């Protein structure tokens, strides 16, 4: 159980940015921090990790005060056993990928996770590379692996999958979810990717301008925003082709492309690139399970 209740002013050249947080996070939760750029998500993580001290208030973790302004308590980051994937990766330039992982290992840690992590994150090929020779995505995978090596109690992820393509990011999502469950972590993820959020997290905390404006299950939070319940999707027109007397409109909905038949009057106000809603008149959907990938 993490109980947060604090204020923090960040001095910027043009005034102050005020962070004011009141939040309880149950043990084992998988929380998503969601909000526009500059809302204070990274600062939230930094304060929890002990890298930034609040001005006043308290941070209690399992009833142990990690920070308490009245009692003048401020636990150092070293004592918090937190795994952190930084937005800029913060890989150590002097160490190879493998050395970065080895360095993260805690003394007296019984299980050596490194080979397993290197395997899952597809880092084995890159084991002896230094960070400056890695591509952006390779760096991100290495940083994620490094944060998991130490088997933290709390895992903080600052957009850990932003630079990865769909294929590997699906794989890593699964891995993060498994790690979260297997090691009974409390995980806090900063992400903008709704699919990722839905798949991974059980609570979404929405931040805006340093404050928590909403929180709840992802469904609750996003259902209102989206066109809920009905089978209708927003998409973009890719092309309109005439076939005999009808027109075939190709629409991109997320990364699926569908073709919709329309007649001349319907087509009049449509252009390539227009945003459209595609809905079903008499819809009767069926659902099939996709077999697990090996």
């Amino acid at each position, binding site marked *: 159980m993490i109980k947060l209740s604090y204020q923090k002013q960040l001095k910027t050249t043009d005034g102050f940015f005020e962070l004011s947080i009141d939040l309880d996070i149950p043990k084992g939760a998988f929380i998503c921090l969601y909000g526009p750029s500059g809302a204070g998500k990274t600062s939230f993580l930094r304060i929890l990790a002990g*890298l930034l001290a609040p001005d006043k208030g308290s941070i209690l973790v399992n009833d142990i005060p990690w920070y308490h302004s009245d009692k003048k308590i401020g636990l150092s980051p*070293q004592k918090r056993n937190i795994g952190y994937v930084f937005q800029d990766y*913060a890989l150590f330039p002097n160490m190879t990928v493998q050395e970065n992982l080895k360095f993260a290992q805690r003394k007296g840690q019984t299980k050596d996770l490194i080979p397993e992590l290197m395997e899952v994150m597809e880092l084995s090929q890159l084991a002896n590379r230094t960070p400056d020779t890695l591509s952006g995505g390779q760096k991100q995978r290495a940083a994620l692996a490094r944060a998991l090596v130490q088997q933290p109690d709390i895992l903080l992820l600052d957009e850990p999958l932003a630079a990865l393509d769909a294929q590997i990011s699906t794989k890593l999502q699964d891995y993060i979810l498994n790690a979260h469950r297997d090691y009974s972590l409390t995980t806090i993820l900063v992400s903008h990717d709704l699919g990722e959020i839905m798949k991974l997290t059980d609570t979404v905390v929405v931040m805006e301008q340093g404050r928590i404006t909403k929180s709840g299950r992802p469904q609750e939070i996003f259902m209102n925003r989206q066109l809920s319940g009905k089978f209708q999707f927003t998409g973009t027109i890719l092309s309109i082709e005439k076939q005999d007397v009808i027109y075939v409109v190709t629409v991109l909905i997320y990364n699926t492309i569908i073709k919709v038949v329309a007649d001349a009057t319907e087509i009049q106000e449509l252009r390539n690139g227009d945003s459209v809603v595609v809905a079903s008149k008499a819809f009767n959907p069926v659902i099939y399970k996709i077999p697990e990938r090996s």
Partner: protein
Amino acid sequence: MNWEPLLLTFELALTTTIALLLVSIPLAYWLSKTTSRIKPVIETLVSMPLVLPPTVLGFYFLVAFSPNNAFGEWLNSWLGLQLVFSFGGLVVASMIYSLPFMVQPIQAGLASLPASLSEAAAVMGKSRNITLFKVLLPNIKKSLLTGIVLAFAHTVGEFGVVLMIGGNIPGRTRVASIAIYDEVEALNYEAANFYSLTLFAITFGMLLLVYLINGGYLKRFWK
């Protein structure tokens, strides 16, 4: 040609550089981290040994370390340290004299590292010491090298301070710089040239090796 002064010079320079490295790393680290109000004062003090002419600085050391003096007396009787006319004294004086050359590049190097490196290490539970030695210092090799080379070379060429508190004792405090100076004074220009060239050649070779290794030119043989 007497090799003793040259050997002594390199012994002194090596000892001073190593001892100075041990002192400067924590000091530079503290300076690069602290937000204390006295930081600029300490920074200024660190530069001050440069400002006085070496012989004058040497003279003040001489007075301070002299057994006639409370401080020298105390060093002598309590720590059994005799700093005038001894190799140990040369080391102490050279360290003070070369302090800024070691501290300042290391401090500038540390200050230029992104904060996220130490933060990442802290989050991993690594102590400040481990972070410093495993993460920070290996990433400022260029600056460390600058510090080491400046301090080493400066001690090799040091003259005034050493002359003052060393007493020019052959085999103990008569380093090459003083030997060369003596030869110049004695108008033995040839001997002086010969000493100078040897000193120059050896140091040139040493530094070149350092820079070659540092530049990765010797990777084939090194790794």
